[in-house]
């Protein structure tokens, strides 16, 4: 057990180091973006003196490395700076949006993870059957379609409905726009975010399901599964007690990658459903050259990514009895 704690501590330290490197990359690549906030706000007609004064006011006249260390110092004390455009604290801006993003990601994960596991295990058990082929084709189709297209198809069928020549049929099940604010209750929030959650599920389920299928098929050929068969155990017991626990490590890693996508990669889905998530905020801020918000959002995304991979590593080690119970 101590070995595992040591390992977790090592990975955490490594994660922090990665985060530091990422902060460097974020800061300096953001500085490389053409134009700056002062020019963007004041417009092309602004006098050089006005621009200069405005930049001094924002601190943009100082050399990049000085600004970096100021920013880093702030980050370490939990202060991500102040937004140029709204003059609100970046932490406050990101905080609300981050909650929304996490809510939607968790919602999609709650649907997608069990679905992918069940579909994958069944596909492995009945491989090359009609069921297996159907599931493969359907999930591959959804992963191959652009996510905004999936979103609009869902909106058409489940929200707006179809015109059959005389009346609208179907539709009306869910709202096409996922507008949530702080005063919306939990279940209402769930109801309003169902369409984006389904869209995200459709995007990620194929990957996880195929990995589950492959891992389980791999394991079903192993001697201890044959042994379980020869012990006369039931099929469900063989799968859930003998195969799945040993298939977890690769599955966990794929799940982690997909969870990360749910949090950092869903800008398009947020745009389609007008959902106030972190992705939308990032895009807005980039177009406004609002550097503190861009940097803050990127840093949060990076931290989430690193944490998820760390969790996956730890979980896959914990799921391996050789490491959990050393000799």
């Amino acid at each position: 057990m101590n070995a595992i704690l040591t390992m977790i501590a090592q990975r955490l330290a490594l994660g922090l180091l990665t985060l530091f490197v990422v902060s460097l990359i974020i800061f300096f690549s953001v500085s490389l973006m053409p134009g700056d906030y002062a020019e963007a706000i004041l417009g092309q007609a602004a006098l050089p003196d006005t621009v200069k004064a405005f930049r001094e006011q924002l601190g943009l006249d100082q050399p990049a490395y000085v600004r970096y260390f100021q920013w880093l110092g702030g980050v370490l004390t939990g202060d991500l700076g102040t937004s140029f455009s709204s003059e609100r604290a970046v932490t406050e801006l990101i905080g609300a949006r981050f909650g929304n993003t996490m809510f939607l990601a968790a919602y999609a994960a709650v649907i997608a993870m069990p679905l992918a596991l069940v579909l994958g295990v069944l596909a492995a058990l009945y491989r090359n059957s009609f069921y297996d082929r159907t599931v493969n084709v359907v999930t591959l189709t959804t992963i191959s379609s652009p996510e905004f297209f999936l979103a609009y198809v869902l909106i058409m069928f489940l929200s707006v409905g179809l015109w059959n020549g005389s009346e609208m049929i179907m539709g009306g099940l869910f709202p096409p726009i996922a507008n949530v604010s702080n005063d919306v209750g939990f279940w209402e929030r769930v109801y309003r975010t169902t369409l984006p959650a389904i869209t995200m599920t459709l995007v990620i389920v194929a990957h996880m399901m195929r990995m589950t299928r492959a891992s389980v098929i791999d394991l079903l050929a192993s001697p201890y599964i044959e042994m379980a068969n020869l012990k006369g155990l039931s099929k469900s017991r063989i799968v859930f007690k003998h195969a799945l626990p040993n298939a977890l490590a690769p599955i966990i890693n794929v799940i982690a990658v997909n969870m990360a996508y749910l949090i950092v990669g869903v800008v398009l889905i947020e745009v389609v459903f007008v959902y106030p998530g972190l992705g939308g905020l990032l895009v807005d801020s980039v177009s406004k050259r609002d550097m503190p918000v861009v940097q803050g959002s990127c840093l949060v995304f990076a931290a989430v990514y690193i944490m998820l991979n760390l969790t996956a590593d730890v979980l896959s080690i914990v799921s391996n009895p050789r490491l959990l119970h050393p000799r």
Partner: protein
Amino acid sequence: MSTKNNSREKGELVLRMRGLRMEGQADGEWHEIVKGIDLDLHRGEVVGLIGESGAGKSTIGLASMGFARPGCKITAGSIEFDGTDLMQQSEDYKRNLRGGRISYVAQSAAASFNPAHKLIDQFGEAAVQHGVLTKSEADRDAKDLYRRLELPNPDTIGYRYPHQVSGGQLQRAMVAMAMACKPDLIIFDEPTTALDVTTQIEVLAAVKDIVTTFNTAAIYITHDLAVVAQVADKIMVLRHGNMIELGETRSMIAKPKEDYTRELLAVRTYKKEEFAEANDDVPILKVSNITASYGKGVNVLDNVSMEIHRGHTVAVVGESGSGKSTLARVITGLLPPSQGSIEFEGEILPPALKSRNKDQLRRLQMIYQMPDTALNPRQRVRDVIGRPLSFYLGMQGQEKENRIRELLTLIELDPDHFIDRFPGELSGGQKQRICIARALAAEPELIICDEVTSALDQLVAEEILKLLQRLQNELHVSYMFITHDIATVKAISDEMVVMLQGEIVEQGEKDVVLTPPQHEYTELLLSSVPEMDPDWLDDLLAKRAAGEVVSTIASKPNA
């Protein structure tokens, strides 16, 4: 113990197989792999199924449980277990028998125990699932059986995971698991093949004890006649899915009727004809005071010194974990030693592979245990053998082509037939021949043979040994022969080195080492090799119990 079994008379028919035919799928086509087998098995009786790989032994063994592996199917015949034809029964009926009234002991316990669960949970699983025992009854039985099979700490060993116990213990735990429901029939599928000889004894004794105590019927599958002679009442010899011969163990070993059985019996008789003279010049290889370890752990080799002379074969023997293969890795430079030196014809070899020059590399070649994995499946025979020719000797074009053909002729494979084949189109023995040709292509002075025959069938292995010997006579190449098989040592070596836990315990001319007095470990190793005598195991166990011969070796405290 269960009253069910005791109420049954010895001699009652348990299994009756008639005209069993099975097909297996290869390259999308179905081929018959079992061609009409009849088998009767009575309570308390053990039948040995013996034959080379591909004979259909395991397939028949599994069929007696009404089971066919994926890619196999039973096409005809009847399998009557306790009077009921399994072929006519539902999958659920058969599932209920499996693990309950018929159980199975697999070849590799390490692979057949689920790594995610404790031994004792796996022990009781079938019994609990079939409703024969409660979990606490199963746990109690497990401890009884672990004690009976002389596992260390029988009350607690079950709470360990499979990777936490040794191979021999795991195999005994699997025999115990097979007994959990006190079955009427047990299939032992090569239960000792993956074990060292000293461990094999323990498992054989356990099998014999269980079968006699519980009056269980058993099928014992192996490719080793000497092993099956110890446990079986009768033996069935199989080849290519046909039955060659069936008879009482004693009479078959004394008077085999068929030529094939005679061949199987004769495989252990091959012996190197003449003992090569030790010439007094500098040895080809001189290893002095080598100490080596992986990482910062315990030393895997401890102060090892040995010599190999030109044209000689030195066998390095010992159990798994004794450091044999590590010694080979040190000599080839894959693992630089922490102390000691290696001289090749009087010249010090750089310890690391990277700092050796091409000529030093060329003169030392290796042949591996698994010809399947030692050959690149995407390279034709021509490329496999051609590569060292161009790499070491700079041969190109027609010269290289001629040399490849010459080498193929040398290893007794027809160049016209084999030069364009891929490894997948070769048998196990042919692949090993290609590996030998590849080693010879470099024109080496020493070849390290790492268990080169242990993955092969006995008759094929014998051919390979003869080939290696012929090549030595013709080319005066030296061999370092790493093996755990004493029969191989007797057959091919001039000198031998006995290793135990990273140290050399005894070395010298083969006949000297093989003749008493010996180091007690050498004695243990030699006495553990099964002999073609049905009474060998009983006699040995009796002698060991009486303390007349060595039965264990005190192990190093840090090992």
